[in-house]
Structures are given as structure tokens and as C-alpha cells.
């Protein structure tokens, strides 16, 4: 398992020993691992607590919507958070992009649930911001934003083009 920070450093190691600044960078990567594991465990262990209130809010906000569609949207974002957690753990945005987002974006567009998915992602965002510590949130936030940019904003642009 290799994430981008290690990869970059290892390419440099082909030429020479790490200099002091490379070693400091390596140490910083290793040091952040503890917090990443802690954050990952929190997300894993609290999956239902994070999503059940969001599911309940969704049913309230869209009372006439087919529950299967609401479930589809929820499953999309259950996936998103799982893959964001993994990408955060190894600090690799490409993991999130290639393993999930590139595949999921067309699926989300085809289901055409923009209002539901937007509502869901906004609630997820604010829920996690409250539940996680500031340093945990700082680690996870860029990956959530990456997911939002792909699944929500790209979908909005695609719909406008249509």
C-alpha cells in the first residue's frame, strides 16, 4: 500500500539518500498515521450513528419520494464515506477518484437525484463537522470536498448542459 507522499519520497530515494528536509517530511507522514487511524476507526465504528439521523431527515424532507430512490442515494453516500475514510487513511485522493468517484459519477447523474443527493451531502458534511475533532475533520474534509465536487457540482453542470 503506497500513498502519494511515500511515492514521491521513494522516487527521490532512487537518486540519493534522503536529505534532512526529506527525512522530516517522512517523519511527518509517519506521525500523521496515528491520527488517520483514529479518524478511520471513528468513522467505521459510528457508521449507523452518522447516517441514521440523515436518513430520517431525508424521509422528512422528501415525504412523497419513493423510498427506494432515497435508499439509493443513501447507499451512494455510505460508499462515498467509506472510500473517503480509506483515502484519508492512506492520504491518496487518486484512490477515491479511481476506485469510486469516476465510476459513481455517471450512476449518480443517471439516477437524476440531484436535490436528494445535495441535501444528503450537506447534512453529512455538517454532521461530520460536529462529530469529529478539529484535527480529524481537517484530515477528512478535503476528500469529502473532492467527492462533492465530482458527484454534486459535476452533475449540476452536466444537467445544465443537457
Amino acid at each position: 500500500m503506497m500513498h502519494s507522499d511515500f511515492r514521491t519520497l521513494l522516487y527521490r530515494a532512487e537518486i540519493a539518500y534522503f536529505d534532512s528536509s526529506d527525512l522530516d517530511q517522512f517523519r511527518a507522514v509517519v506521525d500523521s498515521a496515528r491520527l488517520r487511524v483514529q479518524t478511520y476507526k471513528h468513522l467505521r465504528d459510528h457508521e449507523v450513528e452518522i447516517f441514521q439521523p440523515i436518513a430520517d431527515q431525508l424521509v422528512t424532507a422528501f415525504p412523497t419520494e419513493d423510498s427506494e430512490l432515497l435508499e439509493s442515494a443513501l447507499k451512494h453516500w455510505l460508499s462515498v464515506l467509506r472510500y473517503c475514510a480509506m483515502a484519508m487513511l492512506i492520504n491518496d485522493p487518486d484512490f477515491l477518484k479511481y476506485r469510486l468517484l469516476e465510476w459513481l459519477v455517471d450512476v449518480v447523474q443517471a439516477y437524476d437525484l440531484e436535490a436528494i443527493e445535495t441535501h444528503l451531502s450537506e447534512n453529512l458534511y455538517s454532521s461530520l463537522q460536529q462529530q469529529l475533532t478539529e484535527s480529524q475533520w481537517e484530515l477528512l474534509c478535503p476528500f469529502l470536498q473532492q467527492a462533492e465536487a465530482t458527484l454534486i457540482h459535476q452533475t449540476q453542470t452536466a444537467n445544465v448542459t443537457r
Partner: protein
Amino acid sequence: MISVEALRNEPLPGNYFAPDVYLQGDYELGLLENRSGDRLIAVPEILLEAIREGLEEEVGPSSGLVMFQCGRWWAKNFYRRFGEDVSNYYGKPLADMAMVELIQCIKHCWKTHGWGVIDLDMSYNQQGFLVVTIRNSPFSATEVQDNLSMNFTEAGILSAFFSQLTGRDLHCAQTSCESMGAEVNHFVLGIAERLQSTEALVKGGLDHDTIMERLCIADQ
């Protein structure tokens, strides 16, 4: 009331064909494999080109047919493996998958194998045609004659693959070619009798959209 506890126990898969996990192998043994253990090899473009040219030299005008049949034979087997692998990963038979998910699998399968970017155009479905576009195709086209440049191998592959997928006997004809300056390769899939005029239309220098108009009118 939606139960998240129930939802989270359903499979929530991602992209089966994500390159970092799909492409595997045992470097020590010189083996490149996909995640199901099927062997893959990296074939240089120039070797594909050499095979095509060698075939043309040996069998002349029949080379197109030979390459078409090669494409068909290979794709029939490939489709079977594709079907098994995708069904196993996504936990349901292909027939039960949502169309958009299945199309995503096909697109990402093509991309990860380095066969270019494939897209499906459903706008002629009502008239009984499926249009496939491929950008950055790895297969080189045969310069037949008179404006006609065809990628026979690829046409054969698409014919067999989509025949299996749809359960219908679909022929495939190419209506635009990257090697002739088009932006993408266009392929049209349909029943063989309805595609008979395609070659003549391409030779006549017509573009893909015009050819599709003529094919749709011809049936009325």
C-alpha cells in the same frame, strides 16, 4: 423509516476495473494478470500493426474478414469472462444490473485495458441501431480503398460483445475513423441486412450523422 443498519449490510461496491487493483501479477514469474487471475500481456502497438500488415500481405482482400472473425471469436470468450467477473463482484447477474452500472463497467473495462475510451449512443435505439464511439483505439485501421478505412478487428469485437449482451445477432460497421481524421471511431450495431449499405455510404464520403440518417430512412 429507512434502516441504515440494513442498508450498510448490502454490498456497496466501487469500480471493479480500477487500474491499481485490476492489474496485478507476479513480477518474479514475469506474469501480468487481472484481479480474477486471467493472464494479461502488454502488446506493443507496432506488433498489432505488423500482424495486420502481414495478414494483408498473405491473404489480400480477405484480411478484413479474417480480422473481423478474430475479433468476434476473442470477444465471445471475453464476454463470458466479463460477465462472470462483474456478476461475482457486484453480487448479481448482468441482466439484473441497472443499465447505467453495466455501461460504466464496460467503459471502465475498456479504459483499464488500454483499449481507448468507449461510449454508447442510445439515440438511435428506437430505430434498432446502437452506436458505439471509441476514442484512442489501439487497433490500427486497414486502408481498404476509396476513402474506406476500417477497423475490422474492433468491429468484430463489438459485434460479438454486444450480440451476447443484447441476446441478438448484431453485425457491426464502422462509419468514421480516427485514422481518416475523424474525432472518434464510430461503429453502428444492428441487424446485418440493415447495415449492408454502410460501406457504400462511407466510401461516398458521408459523415457519421448523415449515414445514420440514411440508415434510419432506408427502413421506412
